[in-house]
């Protein structure tokens, strides 16, 4: 159970770090081992890039726009092999922080090349997860690092501050989506934007598993609710981040939102699970430290009030 010991901003950050610390090191270790497997078996092999004509090279604004010609096939193959090796070391948990960060950097480069043909996909949270969780200590259990550190007498433990920073990154990423929607007019009562996307995706891309069924529901109220729910689910994390219970509830709500998007538009964000799960790698009771803190304060308040009234009664009696 996390308690507020310090005061001021530094104390609050310390408290937040403790509240976000993924104490279940073995769960975190499972996540560490699952990431490379997921990468190799469930994401698209980047070798497809080598089969695209170089004239289609169209890098997005940013560092990749400085690369004026498409990188050669061997370069992409080397990047992928190095990523495989880094992933293997992540699974083993040897120099976990270094290889996790290296894996994130390599994935940014590989995906940067893959996104240089006219479309940027939004997998940045998936790609950055190894670096973030590496610093948070996903190598603290079931790893070569943990074995070596135990032998040296300094067992590794997960730490919370990287999770605070990671939480801020997730909240901000989601906020960018909500803000853009708000500016575009998603909040206007007469605009059924989610429904307009569902119609477009059904016509152009066959939509998701439930697009037709959902479109058969002629309720403007329901469709407008989806618009507002989207704005809320993506936008409120920027505030909820400061309250661990609310933030965790927000991440669970996002999972529901992602499932909804997949069912309606056929777009999957399953990779984001790696970004979110770290915030749940601790005992269930510790998911809500602020609620416990509040409960504790209120409890103390009640005790204080009770003792005050007892004193008053004894004063009156005397």
């Amino acid at each position, binding site marked *: 159970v996390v308690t507020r010991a310090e005061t001021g901003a530094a104390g609050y950050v310390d408290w937040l770090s403790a509240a976000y610390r993924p104490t279940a090191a073995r769960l975190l270790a499972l996540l560490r081992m699952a990431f490379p497997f997921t990468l190799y078996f469930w994401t698209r092999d980047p070798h497809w890039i080598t089969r695209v004509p170089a004239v*289609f090279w169209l890098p997005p604004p940013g560092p990749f726009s400085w690369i004026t010609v498409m990188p050669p096939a061997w370069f992409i193959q080397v990047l992928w092999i190095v990523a495989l090796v880094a992933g293997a070391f992540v699974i083993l948990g040897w120099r976990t922080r270094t290889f996790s960060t290296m894996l994130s950097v390599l994935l940014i480069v590989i995906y940067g090349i893959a996104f240089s043909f*006219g479309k940027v996909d939004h997998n940045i949270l998936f790609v950055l997860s190894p670096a973030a969780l590496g610093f948070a200590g996903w190598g603290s259990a079931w790893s070569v690092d943990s074995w070596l550190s135990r032998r040296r007498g300094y067992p590794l433990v997960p730490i919370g501050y990287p999770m605070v920073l990671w939480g801020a*990154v997730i909240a901000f*990423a989601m906020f*960018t989506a909500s803000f853009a929607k708000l500016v575009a007019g998603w909040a206007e009562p*007469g605009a059924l934007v989610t*429904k307009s996307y569902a*119609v477009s995706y059904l016509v*152009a891309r066959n939509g998701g598993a439930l697009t037709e069924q959902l479109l058969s529901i002629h309720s403007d109220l329901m469709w407008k609710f989806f618009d507002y729910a989207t704005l809320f689910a*993506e936008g409120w994390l920027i505030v909820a981040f400061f309250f661990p219970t609310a933030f965790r509830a927000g991440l669970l709500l996002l999972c529901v939102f992602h499932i909804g998007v997949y069912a309606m538009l056929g777009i999957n964000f399953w990779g984001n699970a790696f970004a979110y799960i770290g915030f749940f790698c601790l005992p269930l009771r510790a998911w809500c430290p602020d609620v416990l803190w509040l409960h504790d304060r209120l409890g103390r308040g009640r005790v204080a009030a009770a003792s005050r009234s007892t004193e008053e009664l004894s004063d009156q009696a005397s």
Partner: protein
Amino acid sequence: LLIQGVADYLTTPEAYPTISMPAFDRHVNEQTGRAAGSLTIIRLKCSDGTVVRPSASVLLRPLGIASAGKQLSRLFGSDPDLKLTPELSAWIKGKAAKLCKRSTPTGFTVYRYRTIVDPNKGTVKTHGRPVVGGLTW
């Protein structure tokens, strides 16, 4: 985070790598309840007389849906720098050959329409004349 977020928001097309999630910032007109969209239709002609209607991503595999649409749009209009070289033509023909199965592809036409999406009626209607491009082999 803020600086890169503002830079990313002001940049078109979207920058990479940035800490952001998809905007889906289509504007739906509140008065009419409609939104503007686009639709690409491809008609691939085969030597046996059959006509196949593949999506852009099927014709330009392994490019994804959005990338393939963008590249077709560049190829037939929006990007004067992208020239249809004999090598590129042959590459597309190779892709088209797989779609014609037992015959050979003789050419394809790309129609790029502006559309009006009406969520109230659940319809997508083409609007105006299409931008047409294509290739003959």
